[in-house]
């Protein structure tokens, strides 16, 4: 029923539904651009020379016919039809320089899009037509394969070995908790030490002089702090006198006796 139509293209028919309803297989196209390209190619001219106006008319006619057949048409096809109808009217109307973009520009852009889609369609076809591995040319059917056998070079050191044995043995022992001595001088030790030493000096003597000579590091800091507190305690008991000339100056001690 469509064959005698004067248009130079055919609606693709889905023949499986032919008994009662004529089905227009719009699924045959991947969107309006695809349909437009199909119509454009029917003009049988170079896409660069295609008549966008004629193409527009064909597309609109196609969609109108599909609607007349009460076919469901996807929204994007209708949007394209509306846009093309607008483009067509612009192209036909006298040129209005205030319209931007101009209809010629829109038409050119559409043409460029069609050319690009067509170029990729042809490229895809040429790609698929190449001598393809597994279809036209073949790799070795049954390759031996290159196998790398990973052999573990087990590694362990003697230290790890004996440390591990130590750990195994230690595991059997009852855990014993030993609190390690920390390097501190207790307050009692400091009081005892300062009170003993202060009796032996006559003149004012710096607190540092009361620290053990061998004391270094944490132990010296601990001894200094404890000795300072010891000095305060001994002063409170009236056993030593303290003197400091200015802030941060050396703290001087003397027996109060």
């Amino acid at each position, binding site marked *: 029923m469509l064959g005698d139509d004067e248009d130079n293209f055919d609606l693709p028919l889905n023949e499986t539904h032919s008994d009662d309803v004529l089905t227009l297989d719009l699924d045959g196209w*991947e*969107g*309006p*651009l*695809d349909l437009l390209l199909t119509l454009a190619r029917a003009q049988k001219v170079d896409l660069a020379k295609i008549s966008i106006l004629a193409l527009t008319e064909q597309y609109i006619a196609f969609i109108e016919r599909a609607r007349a057949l009460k076919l469901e048409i996807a929204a*994007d096809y209708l949007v394209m039809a509306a846009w093309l109808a607008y483009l067509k009217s612009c192209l036909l109307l006298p040129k209005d320089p205030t319209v931007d973009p101009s209809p010629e*520009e829109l038409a*050119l*852009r559409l043409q*460029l*899009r069609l*050319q*690009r*889609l067509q*170029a*990729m*369609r*042809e*490229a*895809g*076809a*040429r*790609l*698929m037509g*190449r*001598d*393809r*591995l*597994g*279809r*036209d*040319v*073949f*790799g*070795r059917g049954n*390759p*031996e*394969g*290159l196998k790398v056998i990973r052999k573990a070079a087990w590694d362990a050191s003697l230290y790890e070995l004996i440390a591990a044995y130590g750990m195994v043995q230690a595991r059997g022992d009852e855990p014993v908790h030993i609190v390690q001595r920390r390097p501190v001088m207790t307050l009692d030790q400091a009081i005892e030490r300062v009170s003993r030493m202060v009796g032996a000096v006559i003149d004012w003597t710096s607190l540092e002089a009361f620290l053990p000579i061998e004391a270094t590091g944490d132990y010296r800091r601990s001894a200094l702090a404890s000795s300072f507190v010891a000095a305060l305690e001994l002063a409170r008991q009236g056993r030593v006198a303290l003197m400091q000339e200015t802030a941060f100056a050396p703290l001087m001690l003397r027996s109060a006796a």
Partner: protein
Amino acid sequence: MIGEPDDLLRAIEAALFAAEGPMSPAELMSVIGTDGLGDALPRLAALYAGRGIELVERGGRWHFQTASDLAHILRRTREEPRKLSRAGIETLAIIAYHEPVSRAEIEAIRGVQISKGTLDVLLEAGWIRPAGRRETPGRPLLYATTPSFLTHFGLGSRKDLPGIADLKAAGLLDPVDLAFEQIQMEKGDTGSDDPDDGEDE
């Protein structure tokens, strides 16, 4: 077969023959245990030229395959490899000719959205791969082809894509906007020759 098969050539031959896939010179050297291949690969390829089996380079990797003119003998017993949908073919072509390219750019050329399965099929076939993101708003993921793509379609490199030089020269790989500007410029100033045109790589 030839005068004196030298040891390196024999080793390369054996390794490529036994390998389950194409090999780069670096992989070959590691398998054979040598520090350099010299011109052994092209020499070996030359030895096989015109035979029923050929040594070919695809994207820097080498493999043996049957000569293409013998396809009629071998194809008979084989099933057609995966058949791509038209959407799949076009999408693959767009990625190959434009890479790296985003999904939106593919859709702009095809005029339709890509259904999810299309890229999946191409990814699964090992012909395309994600290739970073474009540093534009949205940071879209980009796609490019893989060495397996070149291997499967018998391409030495992307330069061997059918007609790519012509398409490039005709500006058909440029986006519409760029092509449009180009035309406008040529209209205004026919002598114009923008040095920045056409190249999309």
